[in-house]
């Protein structure tokens, strides 16, 4: 209880409240710009979190990510362009409703569903996470090794594109994670004599490079061709009749929130997958599935509750096991490690105030989203008219200064550039970048626990399956790897077998 009051005291201090407000406005702005994602908003905030305390830093990230996911619905409704991938599932429905002159109402409904989904999910995880943490207190290096590997494997499994490219991206992330002084004997590895590389690849420039610079490299060339200006639809009155619709669709909201929380808890799956899954499930169990995709609100309600609920869900594996649920929590883990806090079950006893603060900030961010979201919807026309030709150079200079500011080092600016170019090349060639960043964060955990277990077992790999929990986690990991290796050939074999039957 003392931790709870300490968290309340820290969250409701003027600097943290101002940080939440500023980050919320920033998140709304980034989310409302088509193509700029929640991960990019978080990555751009990371250099600033370097100058904050742990609670202030996490508050900034939570507030910005919650707002970005909702704000992605604004261009999706007014322009038919999803602001973030999490809004893509219901873009068509939202735009078709907006065309009927109900843009304000549908955005108001999105806003309320996001708030309800977000708050319920926090209440659920606040009960669930400590219990899970108590169980995981008995974990040894064996369980942690398998857990980290399971998280990485799941990230590869749910990543878009071919499994082999996901595995290679993961391998490259692990390779980057071994750069620096090794934890077993203190020997420099792959540093090529550079003092700057001895501490390993810095997290801040890496995040900024992969998520912001690579995005700019993709977006800026599009400005070379003549831009077709799409006029956004008028938002009109917000919240008119939304209360009635919320009451009428209680089941969709509950379903969406449940799906979102569960998908969020799964390592590697984030808000976009949650929205697609919730939309599909809602359609499957709807009395009017034929109306989906024709401007029907039911799917929007389920999916917008799910994408916001998943944000809270992703913090469960991140806090309990130190395994990121998605790219945003990968950044959160990086920030916590930078602050000297190692996420894991011990966080619930040693940093109880931080855990409570995360819950409180989630609820606070969702509540202030109602007035701020209303302002964002009303001023959407102005935000959407900011020209990309002005916005992108500003983002670039912020990336440069942000990467420099963490260690006052131009070397870090170079790291940012290199990572940006690598991520751009990988994405252009259909390699997913999420496994790379998760591997970079989880690499040291995997290696440290692998080496500990190997030394304990005197090199006997069967000892990794000796403890019951470790055995089940190991089996789950091996099943995922079997799916990754044999899933593709199995699918094509089944397709071949069914083709003659269909013919």
């Amino acid at each position, binding site marked *: 209880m003392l931790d709870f009051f300490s968290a309340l005291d820290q969250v409701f201090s003027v600097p943290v409240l101002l940080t939440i407000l500023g980050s919320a406005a920033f998140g709304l702005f980034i989310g409302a710009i088509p193509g700029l994602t929640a991960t990019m908003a978080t990555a751009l905030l990371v250099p600033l979190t370097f100058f904050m305390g742990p609670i202030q830093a996490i508050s900034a990230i939570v507030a910005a990510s919650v707002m970005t996911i909702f704000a992605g619905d604004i261009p999706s409704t007014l322009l038919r362009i999803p602001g973030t991938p999490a809004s893509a599932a219901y873009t068509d429905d939202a735009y078709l409703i907006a065309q009927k002159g109900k843009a304000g109402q549908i955005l108001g409904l999105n806003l309320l569903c996001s708030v309800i989904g977000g708050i319920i999910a926090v209440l659920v995880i606040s009960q669930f996470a400590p219990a899970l943490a108590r169980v995981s207190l008995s974990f040894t290096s064996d369980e942690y090794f398998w857990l980290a590997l399971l998280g990485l494997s799941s990230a590869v499994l749910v990543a878009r594109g071919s499994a082999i490219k996901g595995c290679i991206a993961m391998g*490259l992330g692990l390779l980057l994670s071994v750069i620096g002084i090794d934890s077993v004997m203190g020997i420099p590895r792959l540093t090529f004599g550079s003092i700057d590389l001895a501490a390993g690849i810095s997290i801040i420039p890496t995040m900024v490079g992969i998520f912001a610079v690579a995005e700019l490299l993709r977006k800026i060339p599009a400005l070379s061709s003549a831009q077709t200006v799409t006029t956004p639809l008028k938002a009109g009155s917000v919240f008119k009749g939304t209360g009635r619709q919320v009451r009428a669709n209680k089941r969709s909201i509950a379903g969406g929130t449940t799906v979102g929380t569960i998908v969020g808890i799964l390592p590697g799956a984030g808000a976009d997958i949650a929205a697609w899954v919730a939309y599909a499930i809602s359609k499957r169990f709807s009395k009017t599935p034929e109306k989906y995709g024709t401007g029907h609100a039911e799917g929007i309600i389920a999916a917008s509750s799910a994408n916001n609920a998943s944000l809270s869900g992703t913090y469960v594996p991140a806090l309990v096991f130190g395994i990121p649920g998605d790219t945003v929590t990968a950044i959160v883990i990086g920030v916590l490690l930078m602050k000297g806090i190692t996420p894991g079950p011990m966080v619930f006893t040693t940093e109880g105030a931080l855990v409570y603060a995360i819950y409180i900030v989630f609820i606070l961010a969702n509540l202030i989203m109602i007035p701020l979201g209303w302002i964002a919807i009303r001023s959407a026309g102005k935000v959407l008219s900011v020209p990309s030709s002005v916005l992108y150079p500003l983002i670039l200079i912020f990336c440069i200064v942000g990467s420099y500011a963490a260690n006052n080092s131009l070397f870090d600016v170079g790291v940012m550039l290199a990572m940006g170019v690598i991520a751009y090349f990988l994405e252009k060639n259909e390699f997913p970048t999420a496994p790379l960043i998760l591997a970079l964060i989880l690499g040291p955990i995997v290696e440290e626990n692998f080496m500990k277990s190997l030394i304990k077992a005197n090199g006997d790999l069967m000892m990794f399956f000796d403890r019951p929990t470790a055995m089940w986690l190991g089996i789950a990991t091996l099943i995922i790897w079997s799916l990754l290796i044999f899933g593709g050939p199995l699918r094509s074999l089944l397709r071949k077998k069914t083709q003659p039957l269909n013919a």
Partner: protein
Amino acid sequence: MRINDMFTGVILAILSILLYRYAQTLPKLSGMDYGPGTFPSLIACGLFIGSLGLMLSGFTQYRNQKAQASSAPTAGSNRHHFLYALSVPAAIIFYMVASPWLGFSLTCFLIVCAMVRWLSHRWLLSIIVAVCTTAVMWFAFVKALYVPLPTFYF
């Protein structure tokens, strides 16, 4: 920059062989067969297997491409796209080289002004945006966050 998976696979195979050879040169724990090189060796093996898969998929891709005549985009639009994309690394490299000499303010002004002008084709807008950005960044990082940004050398 889209390149065939076969080529990427070959590069990756070479990289993984070099990594494996490097990992073998690292010392081992006394009396044991493993040490700081064990994990990098495993990564190298994994990457090598992945590179073989990539080469195979690249070969299939190449065979399919040969079978279908592909319509390539015009060289002009490609060059334009490339030049626009190049402006990002060029601006970052310019900052790394010029900021220790020209200081943050002048370098930031030049980068923002040049990029906004290049992307929007409007001089006045680019100057106004560059002045405002430089001032805001300077106050935010130097005055509020106490980051020692490079100052004018001369």
